[in-house]
């Protein structure tokens, strides 16, 4: 018998999961039962619920767990198992059967010891190679060369520009290439085909889309998740106009005192990985400022006095209707 728990699911989703597990019966290779988090074989993580995810990372994870990312939309994470909301029996069966058929190896659930640096062994949250956004943030060489198939993008870190060869895909689509298909090389020479190139462009869009698409739902190491985040200016229209979420996040991060991740979650229903990607993108393009909350006595408990109150609910509906009418 195998057990599975959940982290961050809504009550409705948790009930659906329990009901599905009860009903699946003989349709899975092994019997699966729902159990409280802690010692289960697998855990379903609602990656849209950032607070729960962060809490799990800090306290609740164990390397013996097999994480299953559960998100409202396909997410670009190096996670082995994933489910898209809402729960569907067929998808759940497929994932559970995949886990059952996997060779558990010598470090089974019964023998594994807890370890200090557990995050390093959580497949979808770490891996030997950090997310591309992190690599760009920490780039210490002159260039980063990104390649997939014939298409190559060269980021000139020192001069804030980039060039592209064989641009078969638009930049954002190119960066959506699966991480294991994207070859990233740090180098001090531009490399073959880029000598003497004169078609350099501002690196702002490249850095922006790397932050948005290649953050693996993790804040950059230089950012403290307990900080207040604020932007110095709005991102260029071409980077935000196609997503209402980006307009909303731009406004949230425009507040006088900035905003915390918890305040974003409370004020909007934007998925955690979208928020993380946006903040990383703002950081990579140099428009983000942060203020550490924990160094300010009382700042966590007391909302900033200068910030205006949230919009009245009556206006929320009006704003939504105006947006629907505009449909950028």
């Amino acid at each position: 018998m195998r057990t599975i728990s959940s982290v961050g699911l809504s009550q409705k989703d948790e009930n659906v999961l329990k009901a599905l597990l009860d009903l699946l019966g003989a349709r899975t290779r092994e019997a699966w039962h729902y159990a409280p988090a802690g010692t289960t074989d697998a855990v379903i993580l609602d990656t849209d619920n950032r607070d729960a995810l962060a809490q799990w990372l800090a306290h609740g994870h164990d390397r013996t767990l097999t994480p299953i990312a559960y998100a409202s939309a396909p997410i670009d994470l190096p996670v082995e198992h994933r489910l898209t909301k809402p729960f569907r029996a067929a998808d759940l069966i497929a994932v559970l059967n995949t886990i059952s058929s996997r060779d558990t190896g010598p470090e089974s659930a019964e023998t594994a010891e807890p370890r200090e640096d557990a995050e390093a062994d959580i497949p979808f949250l770490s891996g030997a190679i950090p997310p591309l956004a992190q690599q760009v943030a920490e780039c210490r060489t002159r260039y980063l060369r990104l390649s997939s198939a014939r298409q190559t993008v060269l980021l000139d870190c020192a001069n804030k520009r980039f060039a592209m060869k064989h641009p078969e895909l638009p930049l954002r689509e190119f960066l959506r290439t699966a991480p294991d298909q994207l070859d990233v090389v740090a180098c001090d020479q531009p490399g073959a085909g880029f000598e003497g190139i004169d078609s350099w462009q501002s690196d702002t869009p490249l850095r922006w889309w790397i932050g948005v698409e290649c953050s693996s739902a993790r804040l950059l190491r230089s950012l403290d998740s307990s900080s207040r985040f604020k932007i110095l200016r709005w991102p260029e229209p071409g980077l935000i106009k196609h997503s209402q979420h980006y307009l909303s996040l731009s406004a949230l991060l425009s507040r006088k005192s900035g905003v915390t991740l918890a305040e974003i979650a409370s004020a909007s229903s934007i998925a955690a990985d979208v928020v993380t990607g946006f903040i990383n993108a703002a950081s990579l393009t140099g428009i983000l400022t942060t203020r550490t909350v924990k160094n300010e006595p009382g700042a966590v408990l007391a909302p900033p006095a200068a910030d205006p109150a949230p919009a009245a609910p009556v206006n929320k509906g009006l704003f939504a209707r105006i947006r629907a009418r505009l449909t950028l």
Partner: protein
Amino acid sequence: MSEIKLIITGTPGAGKTTAIAAISETPPVRTDTATTDDLAEVKDVTTVAMDFGELTLDDGQKVFLYGTPGQQRFEFMWKILVQGGLGLIILVDCSRPDPLADLDMYLENFADFIHQTGVVVGVTRRDQSATPSLDEFYERLEAWGRVFPVFEVDVRQKDDVSLMISALISTLEFATA
């Protein structure tokens, strides 16, 4: 239903009337008269009372778009038009001698309204002048604490006008009361 108003103001010739025409679902009502001052060099007629356009929401409610006259001598009309308004868009014409001073003038005159609502700045005629930089516009807005959007726009393009209104709505919903 109460009247929902969005106000568009800005320098003469910045494109207020054009912006309303770009997005209004009905031909805008205009109150133009022949230009008699220095502005005659760049446009034949100018708005003296207001321009007016409208959008209909899916529940039938109307959103009215009011364009103010640009010249400061029509300041009395500005006070009238903003009453009950939802938010403000300021258009700044970069081909004029001192666009930053122009922005300051509108920020000062609409200060009370902006404090209560929010503002988006649309920078126009960028093809004729690449200065001031957007950073300079943002510096002029720093004193407000809140970071209001500043966009380079072509007000003939419906998408650009939609973007300004969407950003204004987002500002009202998430960054202001």
